């Protein structure tokens, strides 16, 4: 699987692929080659266009320009079935599941197997599903309904789904995001088996230990453009980081020196039926409190519960020393707590509305004449102030938010909340899917906020960012807070171990 494959033809090859969404360029002429028996790591920051490339290879998006070759022959991939026909299968980043259907049916949906006569071969599919799951060393019941599985189990079903195809090219888009350390090692085993079978594997991850453990080659995208490729053996981690970010890493995180004040938000013993339990922490004035965990560890759920979007069955919350009832978002906002959600496009901004309307959305009533009639002048003033303060790049405040780049959209969401003069701002994956420039703008802005006396909770899956910005980090695992570290004790290995459940011996034995 090494030297002579250099001379082999790639199984799958992308050439000059371009794709834009509205005014936003997601891919700007990228190349990618996958060879049999090799693992290629596709690296790049969030928003570099990795997932878009995956969706183009699997026919979910169609490219605006560029060519796709399978075994040297140019092909068009119109939909997922075309991709399967060419032997391309992907495990997507977000789990795409049918919650009401069984595990077996989820695995085979889209290519349900038939007996002679055209009717479905339920018995065969159930048996095959059980076989595949056993191959994955998973104890998931093939007949179980999808909605009874945990997040990690759903990921295993995704991988099982990919295995149900007889593919030449396997694409894994951040497959380990929700997996424990042991499960990750099982996955490595599976990937090595595929390699031995001569399959080509595209492995997308921004965790360097994984890339160096499993990949043979690398290809790097930055801001939708191809920036290089080569052999893993020839590079160091620092080389890759430089390629991804496009500059030196050291000055990325402008952690401000702020004196931490008294307790602002105190949470103790928070829990609900399915999502989290025993959540306790205290946030102080001027503090950046980081939350780390695997995808699906329950961080977002806790934040949404505090913000009044999810039920709370147990525990209490105090704001500025006074008990805070669990209310609706409106009441929480009035308490001075605001929330910048992870899903910016669906929960953060209202895309078809103007920048100004988005910026003043929680404020219209406060600005209105007699509390009822819209006050255009006041709204315009607020809009202008935050456009300037956050340097939102736009032609006019009347522009629709949908016309802005991801980074500028995020600035609109943050600006919307700052206009309400909050005391606590919760940022959920604030730099997910935005370009490098906007990213450091967001970091600089967080620093400015705490300097102004705000308290910040930052949920992030990017450990460098979290370690760079936080005063303390709380690690969550399976709905519990399992570890709390002060800045002096920050250590990537400890944090990751806690997040994958290794830090919690009594619960370590995973199912």
């Amino acid at each position: 699987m090494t030297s002579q494959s250099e001379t082999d033809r790639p199984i799958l090859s992308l050439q000059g692929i371009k794709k834009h969404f509205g005014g936003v360029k997601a891919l700007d002429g990228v190349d990618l080659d996958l060879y049999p028996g090799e693992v290629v790591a596709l690296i790049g920051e969030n928003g570099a266009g990795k997932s878009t490339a995956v969706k183009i290879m699997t026919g979910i998006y169609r490219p605006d320009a560029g060519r796709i070759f399978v075994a040297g022959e140019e092909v068009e991939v119109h939909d997922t079935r075309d991709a399967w026909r060419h032997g391309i299968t992907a495990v997507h980043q977000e789990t795409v599941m049918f919650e009401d259907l069984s595990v077996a049916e989820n695995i085979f949906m889209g290519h349900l197997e038939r007996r002679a006569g055209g009717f479905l071969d339920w018995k065969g599919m159930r048996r095959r599903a059980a076989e595949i799951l056993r191959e994955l060393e998973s104890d998931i019941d093939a007949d179980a309904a999808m909605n009874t599985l945990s997040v990690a189990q759903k990921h295993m079903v995704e991988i099982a789904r990919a295995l149900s195809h007889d593919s030449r090219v396997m694409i894994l888009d951040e497959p380990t995001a929700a997996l424990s350390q042991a499960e990750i090692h099982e996955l490595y085993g599976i990937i090595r088996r595929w390699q031995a079978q001569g399959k080509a594997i595209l492995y997308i991850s921004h965790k360097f230990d994984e890339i160096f453990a499993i990949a043979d080659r690398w290809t790097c995208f930055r801001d939708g453009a191809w920036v290089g490729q080569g052999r893993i053996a020839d590079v160091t981690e620092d080389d890759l980081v430089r390629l991804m970010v496009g500059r030196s890493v050291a000055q990325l995180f402008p952690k401000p020196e702020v004196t931490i004040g008294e307790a602002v938000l105190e949470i103790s013993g928070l829990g609900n039926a399915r999502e989290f339990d025993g959540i306790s922490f205290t946030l102080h004035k001027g503090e950046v409190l980081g939350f780390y965990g695997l995808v699906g560890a329950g961080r977002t759920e806790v934040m949404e519960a505090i913000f009044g979007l999810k039920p709370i069955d147990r525990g209490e919350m105090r704001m500025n020393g006074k008990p805070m009832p669990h209310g609706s978002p409106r009441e929480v906002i009035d308490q001075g707590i605001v929330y910048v959600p992870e899903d910016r496009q669906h929960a953060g901004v209202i895309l078809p509305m103007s920048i100004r309307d988005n910026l003043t959305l929680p404020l219209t009533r406060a600005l209105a004449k007699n509390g009822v009639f819209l006050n255009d002048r006041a709204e315009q003033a607020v809009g202008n102030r935050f456009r300037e303060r956050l340097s939102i790049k736009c032609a006019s405040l009347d522009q629709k938010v949908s016309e802005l780049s991801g980074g500028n959209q995020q600035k609109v969401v943050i600006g919307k909340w700052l206009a309400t003069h909050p005391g606590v701002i919760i940022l959920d994956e604030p730099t997910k899917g935005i370009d490098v420039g906007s990213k450091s703008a967001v970091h600089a802005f967080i620093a400015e906020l705490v300097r102004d006396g705000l308290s910040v909770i930052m949920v992030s899956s990017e450990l460098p960012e979290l370690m760079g910005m936080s005063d303390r980090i709380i690690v969550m695992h399976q709905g519990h807070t399992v570890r709390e570290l002060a800045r002096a004790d920050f250590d990537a290995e400890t944090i990751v171990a806690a997040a994958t459940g290794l830090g919690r011996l009594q619960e370590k034995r995973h199912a």
Partner: protein
Amino acid sequence: MTLTHPSRPVRPMPKSAFETRLLALAARWETALVVILVVICGLNTAASPYFLDLHNLFDSTQIFSEKGLLVLSMTLIVITGDIDLSVASIIALTGTFVGFLALHGVATPWLVVGGIAVGTACGAFNGGVIVRFQVPAIVVTIGTMSLFRGISYIVLGDQAYTRFPESFAELGQGTLGGYVPWEFLIYLAMAAVFAVFLHRTVFGRDLFAIGNNAQAARYSGIRVQNYRFLVFTLSGAMAGLAAVLFTSRVGAVRPNMAQGWELEVVATAVLGGVAIMGGSGTIPGVVLATFVFGMLSFGLGLINVPGIIMSIVTGTLLIAAIATPIVVRRLRLALERRREGNPRG
């Protein structure tokens, strides 16, 4: 004629920008509606010498004033992304209640109050079930569409209430100065109130936000469920008012009164530029569309076309009003793509 929906709501903004935007908007959908209205009036004049008679014209406003009231509140509901199919049935139930009260000698002012109260209660029932149990508005209002009219059938069967006090008839049959029906004036007044409410208040802004993205609205602290309850209750109140006017004008109540109006009301809102998936629409637009439908059925009546044929026209207009902009946009995209010489994508 290019039929393009106003893609966004008229939204308030500083004077100069407001005017420019208004002009830009006027250059699109509302203008088209005015042109359609003029064409229909022209055809009507050509078809019948009785059309351009001032008396007849004002008389004809009674065809659409009651439906017009329903269109106003339906506009708010559709903008928030819901639909209310029970409005016509609320009219039947309210009418039955008013008829029952009248039969038992209740005085005119209380007939009006009672009618509006029952309508409001029906709307609040819809809104309450939708919000409390988190079920789709369409199923709930399909259910109450049967239930409300069904109650009317239980009470009346194949009978009718026909005894009303004389003063009650003035509402639906009386005029200002012998020309302008009270009904029409009430409609215009309500249209003005709704226009201010939707386009100039915080509530209107929040409705647009909800219709464009209910999740983001909720995440921004807007009480989405309260608003949904509010617009359904409002819809019931308007149906109650329409029922009072209808009963007063016709002087008789049967369980099949206003049957099928829900279709015309939704169709008018959509023709008026309200996006059926929510998030955009204007009161001036739907008022114009109400006139278009009114003049169309008046004209068809003048040339003796049976009423049920109007339902073919209504159904076709409903679909065409939505389909045309979609088809036009797709054709334009296809043309652009061909011009770029890129067959892909």
